[in-house]
């Protein structure tokens, strides 16, 4: 019984149905172990964590340069910025805004740099439901290829103070 000391000689290899189940469970664990590296090499959706250290001031300066050189319009007072296909794009997170609005083309690949000016934030692209962590002093680079066109919302899904639920942004994708 589990509440009494076992009789001597309790160390035995599993047998019967228990042995069968352990075999099945181990096989399933091996399948799952292989699935992740397989997807890293052959799948199209991965979080590789590519990042560089950056001070908030430096990052803000890069965002400023990016907006100045690639601005194509304005949406509700926020600049719309269109990076060159294959080029770098910048997205700045701060209490409680995503800045600027990005305009991308479907099927093109961009290196999207995301960092925070203040607290931790959560980049959550809706309604696709893709989520990445954003930290201050880390330039998180997502090599992103939109595969659908339309108007997408970025919401913040890491608690960042009382206005957390107000923090929304936009990504526009053209065919």
């Amino acid at each position, binding site marked *: *019984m589990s509440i009494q000391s076992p009789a001597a000689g309790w160390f035995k290899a599993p047998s019967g*149905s*228990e042995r069968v189940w352990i075999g099945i*469970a181990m096989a399933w664990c091996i399948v799952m172990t292989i699935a*992740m*590296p397989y997807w890293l090499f052959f799948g199209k*959706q991965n979080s590789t964590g590519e990042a560089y250290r950056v001070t908030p001031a430096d990052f803000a300066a890069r965002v400023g340069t990016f907006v100045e050189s690639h601005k194509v319009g304005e949406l509700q007072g926020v600049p719309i910025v269109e990076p060159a296909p294959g080029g770098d794009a910048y997205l700045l997170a701060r209490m409680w805004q995503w800045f600027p609005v990005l305009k991308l083309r479907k099927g093109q690949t961009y290196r999207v740099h995301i960092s925070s000016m203040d607290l931790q934030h959560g980049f959550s692209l809706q*309604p696709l439901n893709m989520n990445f962590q954003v930290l201050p002093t*880390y330039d998180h680079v997502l090599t992103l290829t939109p595969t659908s066109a339309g108007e997408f919302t970025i919401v913040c899904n890491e608690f960042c103070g009382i206005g957390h639920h*107000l923090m929304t942004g936009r990504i526009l994708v053209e065919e």
Partner: protein
Amino acid sequence: MSSITVSGGIPDRAPAGNHAPGAVRTCATTGLSICEVSSRFVRWHAVAAVVFLLIGGSAAILLALTRWPAVHLLSAPWYYRVLTLHGLNMLIFWILNFEVALLYFVGTTLLKSRLYSKTLAWVGFLMMVAGAIVVDVAIFQGKSDVLMTSYVPLLAAPAFYLGLILVAVGCLISVINYFGTVYIAKRDHTYEGSVPLVVFGAHAAAIIAVLTLLHAAAAIVPAFLWSIHLIDVPDPSWYRSTWWGLGHMSQQVNVCAMVSVWYFIGALTVGAKPLSESVCRGAFLLYILFINVASAHHLLTDPGVSAAWKIWNTSYAMYLAVLASMIHGFTVPASVEVAMRGKGFRRGVFGWLTAAPWSNPAFSGFLLSLVIFGFGGGITGVVLGTQQINIMAHNTLRIPGHFHVTVVGGTTLAFMAVTYYIVPLVFQREFVARALCRIQPWIFGIGITVFATGMSFAGSYGVPRRHWDVEFSGAQFATGFDSGAHVMLGIMGVGGVIAATGLFLFIGLVVATVFFGRSNAGRAMTPWHVERSSGEVARHDTDHEEHHTPGTLVLTGVFLLSFVVYYFANWKWLSDVWQVR
């Protein structure tokens, strides 16, 4: 035959304990020797645990009624304040206090030992309670709305961190007191051979608890020093990985404690014994060895952490800790099946299950806990912790949807179930309103399952966790979620109300029993269940019988099938989102 099948179960050849004269009593129900000093601290920690459960539970219902969009009860500042309160009181204060009570109980009772040190027990208890009060007061003062994780550079009042440090150190002292008890039991030869399996599981919990508490110190002490301006702000990435060494590992303490409680209740209610001691112990060993890398589960979409690191660590090396859970998930019901078949309940595949002592709330709570933890928590946990799939889950309601079925439907329900024995045996009070006791696990278990199902599927629509307003009213860019998400949040709200009803019923029953229950001192407790005869002759387990568990094989087969389907469905959904590296 009474439901307490362990009556007289302690053989006469058992060695004597190491108690001072008069400091021990023999339990009239189980024949176990109960250390009077240890019992006092079991009672104190249990009382503290239930008080924090009440605080955390009151917070829970307010939160459920806020995230149910049709109700949206609290204001934004109060939502985040109450969420901070809920997380800490439930995940830390309730559960740690109950676990210390369990460690003291199994360490002294099953090893027939006295408690190592009364002084350490007092110091540990007082620090844990004082620390928790300091934290709760700091939260209500309104300057510590940082949620449970207190991610830097989010800043709380110094008292908030100080309270947490007090709780962690107090808990560490209590765990040391447990190890001291194990040491003197061994030294004084109070038991023969190896420790019982339940104690082995408690060892695993205690060892992981030490690792957890060291991580707590490593994360919270720098945050405290920063809050009083002695050091610079800690690196946010470093803080996250260290904090989750506390945050996730503590959940594995809960898993070990819960699994031990499953074995304990299985033994108490149907006389179950493990199919193979070495397999069960090996599985606990796997927890100790491989569970410490689980902090990676929370960093799967973080910057600055490589894909290789994420993949290796999130899989617990090679899913070896998952393997451990799958082993317990088989061997626990299988041991019940073998015990019931041994009593003669051999009809069909599930005759043993229908004849099980369902009118015993400890048994129904235990089996519900097993099913909810396995089907709900186990499957979602592995899938969400798959590195790439986590892109569709990180910080959405899928995450709390997962851990409300592990730590609430699993651990908390198992702890409630064992309380239906701890109160009669340690407080020596007969439960009041026994009909309500019998339905309480069902109300709580069904409620939390409905709640977590709504939460998980709302999360699949992208609804964030820890978020006050899914309508985003007043936000710069108007947005919102699919109507399906609102339906799911409504289901979550209804489930939350049902679960809270079960929770308050539990607290009410325990409090009423401790204060007004009939004393059973010197007598056996009134059994929860009177076993009917199977109509067949009970027979002793032969080697063949021990491995004849067709019912469990069917149940675990259904489990594995659900697991495989949900796992590959998620890979399919992932292949539909944008490409990203």
